[in-house]
């Protein structure tokens, strides 16, 4: 029907037709998939949720005299950054906490400031206090440095997130008789609430369920700037339960993404504190889907009532790593505010922001319409259903038994 090159030609000429995934659902309902595929060149998707596997590399630049922070210790606003690289390359992860944070020793902990907040503050252009300790060498004599950095003072700063953008996610409930503080929010005892975490019909990988257009090298919206799919995300698992059309009904594909943090916008990267759980970060990600043919249009236009998720018990099953579903529901049901689990009506609440996901998809749409962003063809495909991938568990092994 059309190629990525043809779409890019249209972007250049200002003639491209772009709609958000939400709009695509409506168009296909009204005019049919075939007509929608003819009309629309690009569908933009979006998601905005807490994504713990997020972090930022920074090259700090060299001090005089030089210091070898690599192999030493590095703190950003008291939050430890990974310093096992070269002299002034560091990596700050979203869930890192200051050493003096009481964590859950006063339960439930509040985790007020962590790595995700450092990333947000950095992207916002704020000064970040850097304290680093080193052992000193002939070529890097300095043992300690205390200073401030910001995005103007460092060389490179880029996000590299090993796992973002989960294709679908669990619906969390609590079958136990005590309150639970989880990364899915507060779960009240005895099945009193169900929390879900996906943009559903706007969610990038749910709109390209077989990874036909999204792959390694795909240019994306990341945290308000431009980023790229770097690799398949950790725990990427295409071999999960899918519906009769091949759409995953449980967490499946994931993406590792990369992008220039200096060009990002703190509106789409928000440090977060989950009571009793820890620090993390909300990340806004949007991916444009080129409507290559009717099949791409078909998947891009599936609505919430056709997208399913599994209900998982976080009282016992999840913490004990028992892979079990106690029911399945559609995103339309979840968004209605009440679902049925074990015959009981349970109120359902989102924990990822649909309205911010809409904003991501709308922003991406404007970028394409204004010629700020061109579409890409993947350099390499992501592993699809049937690929030789299975998820390993961490066994408590002893040498000799392996």
């Amino acid at each position: 029907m059309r190629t990525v090159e043809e779409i890019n030609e249209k972007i250049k000429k200002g003639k491209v037709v772009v709609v958000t995934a939400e709009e695509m659902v409506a168009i296909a309902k009204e005019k049919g998939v075939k007509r929608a595929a003819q009309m629309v060149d690009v569908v933009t998707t979006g998601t905005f949720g807490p994504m713990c596997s997020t972090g930022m590399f920074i090259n700090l630049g060299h001090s005089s005299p030089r210091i070898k922070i690599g192999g030493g210790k590095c703190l950003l606003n008291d939050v430890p950054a990974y310093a096992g690289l070269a002299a002034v390359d560091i990596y700050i992860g979203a869930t890192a906490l200051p050493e003096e944070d009481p964590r859950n020793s006063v339960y439930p902990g509040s985790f007020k400031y962590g790595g995700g907040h450092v990333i947000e503050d950095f992207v916002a252009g704020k000064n970040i206090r850097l304290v680093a300790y080193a052992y000193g060498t002939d070529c890097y004599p300095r043992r300690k440095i205390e200073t401030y950095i910001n995005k103007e003072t460092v060389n490179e700063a880029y996000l590299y997130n090993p796992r973002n953008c989960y294709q679908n996610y669990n619906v969390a409930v609590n079958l136990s008789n005590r309150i639970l503080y989880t990364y899915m929010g507060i779960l009240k005892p005895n099945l009193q609430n169900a929390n879900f975490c996906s943009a559903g019909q706007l969610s990038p990988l749910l709109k390209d369920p077989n990874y036909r257009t999204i792959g390694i090298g795909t240019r994306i919206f990341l945290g308000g700037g431009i980023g790229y799919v770097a690799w398949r995300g950790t725990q990427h698992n295409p071999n999960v339960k899918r519906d009769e059309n091949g759409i995953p009904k449980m967490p499946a594909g994931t993406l590792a993404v990369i992008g220039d943090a200096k060009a990002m916008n703190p509106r789409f990267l928000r440090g977060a504190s989950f009571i009793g759980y820890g620090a993390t970060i909300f990340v806004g990600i949007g991916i444009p889907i080129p409507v290559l043919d009717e099949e791409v249009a078909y998947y891009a236009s599936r609505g919430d009532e056709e997208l399913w998720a599994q209900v998982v018990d976080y009282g016992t099953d999840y913490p004990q790593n028992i892979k079990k579903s106690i029911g399945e529901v559609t995103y339309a049901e979840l968004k209605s505010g009440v679902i049925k689990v074990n015959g009981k009506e349970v109120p359902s609440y989102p924990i990822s922001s649909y309205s911010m996901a809409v904003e991501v998809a709308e922003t991406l749409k404007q970028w394409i319409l204004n010629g700020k962003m061109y579409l890409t063809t993947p350099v390499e495909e992501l592993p699809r259903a049937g690929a030789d991938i299975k998820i390993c568990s961490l066994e408590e092994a002893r040498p000799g038994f392996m």
Partner: protein
Amino acid sequence: MKKRILIRFKKNTIDKPIVYRLSKDYDLVFNILRANVYPKAESIMVLEIEGDEENFEKGIQYLKSKNLQIESIEQDIIRDENKCVHCGICTSVCATEALSIDRKDKMRVVFNYEKCVACELCVKVCPVKAMSVYFD
């Protein structure tokens, strides 16, 4: 008039049915927003009281006559609109549905102040600290 007050119970003052008296004798509408009442420790109660001004004053005098310490509080929960990301987590803990999802407007979180009883649960769960307690 409608006002929020904080009552501090001193020792041996928790046995009086004060809320009943306020309602029955002074025709005041009460809403207990919070009550931490213990037999041996200092106890507090946060009340929202509604009624005409004269009755309100008389009611307060009554409470004071019972050796209770009364503090007027203008304690409110406020939302920082720049911080809120409309994730929806707060709606799962808000018992009065002062915080709720607007399904007609992109699942945005609506804050209806009139329904808020200042329980502060949203302040604890909000991951981006958009909700806070405001003392006037």
